[in-house]
C-alpha cells in the first residue's frame, strides 16, 4: 500500500515539476535566457487565481484561467521590462548580456515576490481543487484533484510536443534553438520568435503555478525555492533539453517522494541535490543535454 502511495504521489508531483521546468528549459533553449523570476511568475499565477476565486467568488476553472493569464502577463512584463532592454542595450557588452539578464531577472523576481508579500502577505495561498473529493486506487485514498493535476500536466506537455514537432511555428522555435543566425538569414524575425516563446513560457508557468496552488499551496516566500527547483531539474536534465527536463523531473520527484516516505519529509530535497552535484561532476551537460 505504501508503494502504491509513493507511486501515485511521486507521479503527480513529478508531473507538476515537469510542467514547471519545461517552460524554463524551452526558454533557455530557444532564446538563451535563464529566467530567475520563474518562481515569482508561478506565485503571481497562484495568487491571482486565489484572489479571483476568493474575492470575486469565481468558479475554480475561471480562477485557474485568470491565474494562467496572469502568468502570461508576468512573462511579457519580464521580457519587455527586464530582458529586452538588457538585450538591446549598447552599454552592456555582448559577452556580459547573459549575466546581466540573469541578474536582472533575479532582482525582478525578488521585486515581484516582495510586492505579492506586501499586498497579500507571505502566507501560502491555496485555490480550491478543480475537482473536489477522493477516490480509492489500490487501497490508497487519493484526492481526485491530484490525478487531475497529473492529467492536465501531461496533456499540456503533449500539446507542447505537438506544437514544437508538428507545427510550422514549432519548427521555427526548434530552428531558433539550433541556429538562430541561419533562421534570421531565412527571413524570420527573431524578436517574433522570442515573443512566441515568452507567451508559451507564460502559459506553462501560469498553469504550473495554479496547479501548485490547488495541490500544495503557494506563497511568495516560496518563489526562490520554486526557481531553484526548476533550475536544478533543468541542469540535471540538460540545459535546453525538454525531454531531459521531463526525465529529471521524474527522477527528482520520485527521489523526493521516496525520501519523504521512507526517511523523513525533513530530508525530502537532500538526495536530489546530492544527485545534482554528482551529475554536475560526472556529466556536466546533464542527463540528456547537448554537449
Amino acid at each position, binding site marked *: 500500500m505504501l508503494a502504491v502511495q509513493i507511486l501515485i*504521489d511521486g507521479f503527480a508531483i513529478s508531473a507538476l515539476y515537469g510542467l514547471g521546468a519545461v517552460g524554463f528549459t524551452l526558454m533557455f533553449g530557444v532564446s538563451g535566457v535563464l529566467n530567475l523570476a520563474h518562481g515569482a511568475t508561478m506565485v503571481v499565477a497562484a495568487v491571482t487565481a486565489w484572489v479571483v476565486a476568493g474575492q470575486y467568488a469565481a468558479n475554480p476553472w475561471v480562477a485557474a484561467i485568470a491565474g494562467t493569464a496572469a502568468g502570461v502577463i508576468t512573462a511579457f512584463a519580464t521580457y519587455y521590462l527586464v530582458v529586452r532592454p538588457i538585450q538591446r542595450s549598447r552599454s552592456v557588452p555582448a559577452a556580459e548580456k547573459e549575466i546581466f539578464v540573469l541578474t536582472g531577472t533575479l532582482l525582478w523576481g525578488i521585486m515581484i515576490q516582495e510586492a505579492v508579500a506586501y499586498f497579500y502577505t507571505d502566507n*501560502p495561498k491555496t485555490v480550491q481543487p478543480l475537482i473536489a473529493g*477522493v477516490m480509492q486506487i489500490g487501497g490508497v485514498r487519493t*484526492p481526485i484533484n491530484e490525478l487531475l493535476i497529473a492529467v492536465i500536466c501531461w496533456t499540456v506537455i503533449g500539446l507542447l510536443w505537438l506544437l514544437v514537432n508538428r507545427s510550422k511555428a514549432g519548427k521555427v522555435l526548434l530552428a531558433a534553438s539550433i541556429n538562430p543566425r541561419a533562421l534570421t538569414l531565412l527571413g524570420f524575425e527573431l524578436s517574433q520568435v522570442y515573443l512566441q516563446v515568452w507567451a508559451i513560457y507564460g502559459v506553462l508557468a501560469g498553469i504550473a503555478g495554479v496547479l501548485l496552488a490547488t495541490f500544495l499551496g503557494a506563497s511568495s516566500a516560496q518563489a526562490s525555492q520554486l526557481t531553484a527547483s526548476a533550475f536544478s531539474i533543468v541542469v540535471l536534465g540538460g540545459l535546453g533539453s525538454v525531454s531531459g527536463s521531463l526525465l529529471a523531473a521524474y527522477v527528482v520527484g520520485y527521489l523526493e517522494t521516496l525520501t519523504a*516516505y521512507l526517511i523523513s519529509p525533513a530530508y*525530502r530535497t537532500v538526495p536530489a541535490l546530492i544527485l545534482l552535484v554528482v551529475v554536475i561532476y560526472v556529466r556536466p551537460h546533464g542527463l540528456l543535454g547537448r554537449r
Partner: protein
Amino acid sequence: MLDRSTSAVHACAGALFTAVLACTPAAAAQAQPPETIKIGIISEESAIAGAGISRGAQVAADAINAAGGVDGRKLEVILYDDHSSAADAVRAFQRAASQDKVVAVIGTYISEIALALEPWAARSHIPFITTGAASNEISKHVHDDYDKNKYTFHQYLASPFVSDSICDGVKQLLQPQYSVKTAVVLSEDAAWTAPLDAEYLVCLPKIGVKVLDHIRFSPDTSDFTPLYNKIEGEKPDVIVTGISHVGVQPTVQWAQQQVPIPMIGMSSQATSGTFWKDTNGAAAGVVTFAIAAEGAVTPKTQPFVSSYAKRFGDAPPYTGFTTFDAINVLAEAIKRAGSTDGEKLVAALEKTDHVGTVGRVQFYGRDSEYTHAMKYGAEYVSGIMMQWQNGKQVTLWPKAAPQTKVSFPAFAQLKRP
C-alpha cells in the same frame, strides 16, 4: 518734559523688550505640544501574525491618544519591519534605541527573534515586551539573570501554559462527548514547540490520552501527505497540533486528502480572521487554542475586534489582541512610574494589573521560573478553544454561547464513547 517723556518711552520700550525677551521662551514652550512618547514596534508586516502586532498597536495608541494620551502626552508608534529575520530585528532595535529614542519596544511573534532581542533590551535598558512568541526560554532568561534581563516581558502565554490549556480543553470540551483516548502529537520544529511538546507529553497522559507518536517536522514542509499517511497508520483518535509558521498547507491538505482524524491543538494561523479565506474553507472543523477571539473573553474583547475589523477589514490574529493590551499596559506603567526611564518603567510594569482583551494581565515575579511572563490561570489569562464553523470563528470553551456545539467534518468524525 521732553527728556522725561523720551526717557519714559525708552524705559517703556526697554521694559517691553526685556519682557518680550523674558517671555519668549515661556510663550514658545506653551505653544509647542508636549513631546510624544515613542514606542517601537518590531514585526514582519507581510506575515498575518506580524501585521497583527503593528495594527493592534496602532488601534491601541489611537484610542489612548483620542482619550487625551498619557498624562497629556501623545503616544507615537514607530513601525520597523524585521522580515522575520533576527538580524533585521536586532538592527531595528538598535535604531529604535539610539536614533529614534523610543521608551519601549513591543514586538515579534517568533520566539527565536524575541530571544535575539532580549540581550539588546538588557544592553540598552529599554523595556521590551514580546506579544506573540511562546518559548518559555524568554522568561527563563529573566529568571536566571534578573538584573541583566529584567527589561524583557513576555505578554503572551508561555508554551507549557498553552499545552495545559489545550489539555484542559480536551478534557472538558471533548472527553465528555467523545472517545478521546489516543493521540499523535504533530508539531513544527521551532523554539516555541519544544516546551509545548514536552508539556503535551506530560498533560495528555494525565487526562487519559495515550500519545502514540510524537512527530516534529520542518517548517519548510510543503507536502504533508507522507506525515498524514504515517499518522493514519497509527490510528489515533485525534491529531494534537503545534503549528504556527505553517498552517494553511497542513490544513488544506488534511481536508483535501480527507484524513479521517480530527485536528485539535495549537494552530496559530487559524486564529487569524482571514484563515477561512486563505484555506478556501478547508479550516472547517479545525479546533484550535486562541488567546481570544470574536465574542466574549472580557468586555474589552469585542469592542477591540470591531474597531480592528472596521479599520483593517478582518478580525485580528492572536497578536493583535496581545499587542493592543501591551500598549495599554505600557501606557499605565508610564503613568504609574511618572517617567519613561527604563528602570522605573520595569518596576512599574512589574506592578501591572490590567484587564485587557485577553483577560487579567499580570506578570510573574522574580521568584517564579516564568519571571515577567504573563500569568496563566482561570483568574488571569487562560485562553480559549475555538473552531471554524461556516466561515466564522466560534468560541467553544471555556464559555460558549448556548447554541454552540463542536462540529467535525464528515470525513473526520470523533467516536462516541
